[in-house]
């Protein structure tokens, strides 16, 4: 049964823009227009403020936890054009790195798969996407894709490390193929896929379906299946699910999940990649699941507007 296990009062002084838990689900990071990032210990239903990170000079849009193999590392991005990477050392949180290479608001940050080390993608309203790679010794290598999206980039999301096409029908002993890829969405109404080839980032695909700014993109986690899946949402209220079965990764087809009445701000995949959480300007959160015949259906309304919480009806199917 779906149940609320914790309700965290963040005491932010202004509106919250993002909330994310770490790998194990023990800590919660939130960020707000009050320019702060807060970290709470939420184990066992508690809510202990662990850190109140101040360093941004504008509203903080998004936070992202790195994989725990790199320690406790959190990235945040803000209207103040900065990306700050925070790290916990001996129980105290400090700035590990501050990136100021963008000329406008940085709207999205996302850590790459741990297989590639500590690598962060940042999308900004100056239209560029930056890739920051930790090279050890407090050094960060910076690669920038200028003019990735005309007018501005609103969202970035990494692909799983392993290329799905490299998994099946392969002779034994072959290693799976790892390629750095991510997806981005921007004010040019486009969803773009990027791929690293010989150390250079190249535009791999351009997906067109939205009729207004793309607000968020989410590459579904892989469980080893041959299909790649991406969700994108837009100001036009539409959410599209993009899939690619082609081992070369060139043919993507779009399926409209739903057309909402207001902007859709955020999409998020469950760990098994079969449930999508959608949230937007209508102040509602809905969960969507693909049925066995490939149709997407809304399985629950997590919050029916205005912050009121209703329980989800248990729609779990009995497997087999």
């Amino acid at each position: 049964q779906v149940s609320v296990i914790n309700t965290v009062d963040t005491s932010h002084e202004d509106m919250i823009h993002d909330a994310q838990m770490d790998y194990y689900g023990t800590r919660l990071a939130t960020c707000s227009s009050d320019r702060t990032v807060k970290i709470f210990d939420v184990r066992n239903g508690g809510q202990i403020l662990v850190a109140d990170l101040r360093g941004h000079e504008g509203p903080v849009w998004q936070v992202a936890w790195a994989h725990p193999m790199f320690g406790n590392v959190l990235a945040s991005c803000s209207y103040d054009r900065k990306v700050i990477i925070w790290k916990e050392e001996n129980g105290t949180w400090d700035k590990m790195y501050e990136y100021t290479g963008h000329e406008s608001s940085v709207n999205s940050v996302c850590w790459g798969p741990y297989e590639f080390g500590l690598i962060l993608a940042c999308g900004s309203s100056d239209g560029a996407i930056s890739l920051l790679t930790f090279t050890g010794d407090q050094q960060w290598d910076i690669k920038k894709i200028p003019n990735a999206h005309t007018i501005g980039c609103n969202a970035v999301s990494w692909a799983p490390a392993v290329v799905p096409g490299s998994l099946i029908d392969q002779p034994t002993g072959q290693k799976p193929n790892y390629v750095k890829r991510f997806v981005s969405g921007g004010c040019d109404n486009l969803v773009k896929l990027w791929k690293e080839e010989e150390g250079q980032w190249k535009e791999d695909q351009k997906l067109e379906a939205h009729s207004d700014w793309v607000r968020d993109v989410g590459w579904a986690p892989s469980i080893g299946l041959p299909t790649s899946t991406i969700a994108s949402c837009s100001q036009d209220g539409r959410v599209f699910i993009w899939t690619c079965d082609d081992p070369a990764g060139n043919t993507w087809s779009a399926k409209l999940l739903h057309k909402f009445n207001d902007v859709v701000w955020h999409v998020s995949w469950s760990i098994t990649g079969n449930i999508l959480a959608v949230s937007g300007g209508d102040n509602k959160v809905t969960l969507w699941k693909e049925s066995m015949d490939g149709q997407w259906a809304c399985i629950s309304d997590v919050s029916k507007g205005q912050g009121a919480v209703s329980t989800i009806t248990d729609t779990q199917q009995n497997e087999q």
Partner: protein
Amino acid sequence: MDFNFNSHIKSITSAGFYHLKTLQISTVYCQNQTWRDLLIHAFVSSRLDYCIGLNCAIQINFPCLINRRTGHVFCLFQKPNTAIEYVAAHLSKIHGLDWHPDNEFIFATSSQDNSVRFWDYRQPRKYLNILSCQVPVWKARYTPFSNGLVTVMVPQLRRENSLLLWSTLELNNPVHAFVGHDDVVLEFQWRPQKEGAKDHQLVTWSRDQTLRIWRVDPQLQRVKNYADDPMSSGSKLDSAAVGAGLPQTLQQEFSLVNLQIRNVNVEMDAVNCSCVVTAHFGAHQVHLVVKFPAQYPNNAPPTFQFVPPTNIPNSMKSKIYKTLTDTSLQKVKRNQNCLEPCIRQLVSCLESDMEDGTPPFVPPALPVFPRVTNTYGSYQDANIPFPRTSGARFCGTGCLVYFTRPITMHRSVPATEPTPRSLSALSAYHSSVLTPMKMRSESQRLYSSSPTRSDKETVSISSFYYKERKSRRFKTKREASEFSNRPIKLAGKVIIQDISCLLPVHKALGESYILNVDDIQETCQKNAAAALAVGRRDVVWALASAATSQDLSPDSDPDSETPWARHPFGRHLLETLLAHYSQMSDVQTLAMLCSVFRSQSVPVDSFSLYGGHHSTRSLTSGSYSSNSDSVPTNIYNPGRDQEHLNPWGEPSPDEYRFSSQSFTDPREREREQHDMNKKLLDPSNTLQFDEFKKCYGEILYRWDLREKRADVLKFASCPPEPHRGIEFGVYCCHCRSQARGTQCAVCKRLTFQCAVCHVAVRGSSNFCLSCGHGGHTSHMLAWFRSQDECPAGCGCYCLLQSTY
């Protein structure tokens, strides 16, 4: 029609017609009734005195000639040659003129001198008002609705592709920016409004080859009027690119090319579709002929050719040639013009190569485009997305974290209006009279902005929403006032919900599933019971149990009979099962099935183990945990020592098979085929099965079930990347040669002897970093429980030496 165009000295270059419905015009000049219905006015422009445009006023109905060179406006009444008014206008070229839609005497002029001036025709000597724009203004047009003005900058500057919307009542800051064009806007016009329509539409076309129609809804129209209606809160517009179909001829491109680069000259010949670029840099001269194909610029790049007297070295020629071809290809692929970018590339190439010896090229200083200090939510934030105030994210394995706008924060626009697109929607709150506090009536008891920011910056995303106190009854007045003084919470609560029941994976199953390689049957039965316990009727475990039973185990002799895997209930059934669980994204069942069937298909004594290289100090030593309360992984299970005949570091039979591809014996090949056939899992998909295990392993890790994870990962055929940290090598105790793993490559004997039992160590071992002695982990543990000194008798205090 009685027009007298005699005053034109040179040929008339353009004429336009206005439809009757759009303009109310007196019929003075329209003699013919039919003409009056169809056309009411013609406006004419001529090259006389460099006139670039003619505009008409609604009721006075006279064309206006703009003298571009001197910055003066002549007003010429239509009654032929009767009166010429003279308006002293600008310091610099005038680019455009527009008449006020409602007031017949007022018009606005836009000019190169960075300003738009407003005039009353009756007072030609003094302007009414001035709008300073910091950039030369190409066009300024009144909006058809109240007191608005739209400006666009001079296209050649290529700095700003947005149109700005101003209120003529408040000229300090634009009200809105129409952002969307990728290149400069060349022309814009208001579309005649349909009767009854509330929205106005602005049509723009730009050099990016799109025509856009912008919807300006009543809300935005009111923005201009906020003195009367402070409720106007946001701006919203829809733009629709109508397609990049504008035919763009070479002439157009040529006429738009703007190159103010010293030493570079471009002679354009539109008739022959070619142009000659000449550049002089110090002693170097470049003459380049560019020829444009007929289809240009639709995916047809021009050709480049150096002609005499070009005197740059050949290496540079080829470099420049390559750069130019690349640049042009890049552009024409998108059906864009490429001449200007190509010339700029050429110049930068020459510049970088000329740096030594020649005076550095100084680009002419472009007019500075001073940016007003950026304030949060102002019109300059038109390309920053409107912030999210709600969101939901799946975190960990079974949690959904979400937050929504607090219940006390309402949207100040009706719910039917969509949320604005960009942060500049907040610009309406920037005007000092427009704090949300004053927007509300007293009864709603509004709290202003957050107390910490109120001194510095009051505009925040929360300004967009108005806050309301929950109505509550108070016993005393004091209590009530205290309550109203307390700040309203602008941040909602973050809710963490457990949604694990919606997922196909279950932590309870993760805990209770077992993997016992010694007894697959038992494993299947126990797992079936575990699945039943959480309410899953997983017949799959019964099937697995049957398929892995001893009776069906394949014969090693290829001739005996068809292996069970070839039976319809063999590999085919298993594949169907895997496909089913794939569709359900049930990685847990997938990984477990793959592990069970893999262990079934591989002989027990030659297991390929997780971790390809085994150092003497094995980090992940193989503990075959047989049930849920498994032995900790780093303690070696000595019971298995004797059973193992093959050393653990041996590659699996798979690797043997595929590394040596030189089968000569047909019998050998048949056996090979048989080995493939008798496997229930399709060997060609091994990588995918490994990925299932890896993903499930990751989930188990998040559940903090690390031993279970190790159990599953043991069945991965493809060992993970060898770790790149410190690895301990061994000197073989027999021949003293350096060895990796347990067997010496030189003498083929086991490399490492236990200091306690003097038996070679194959499995888990521990040794002292100081003296190098060590042995079986279990023996070492036992020894050092009571001793401090090295069991080899070397006198080393291993425990002390090894602590660091």
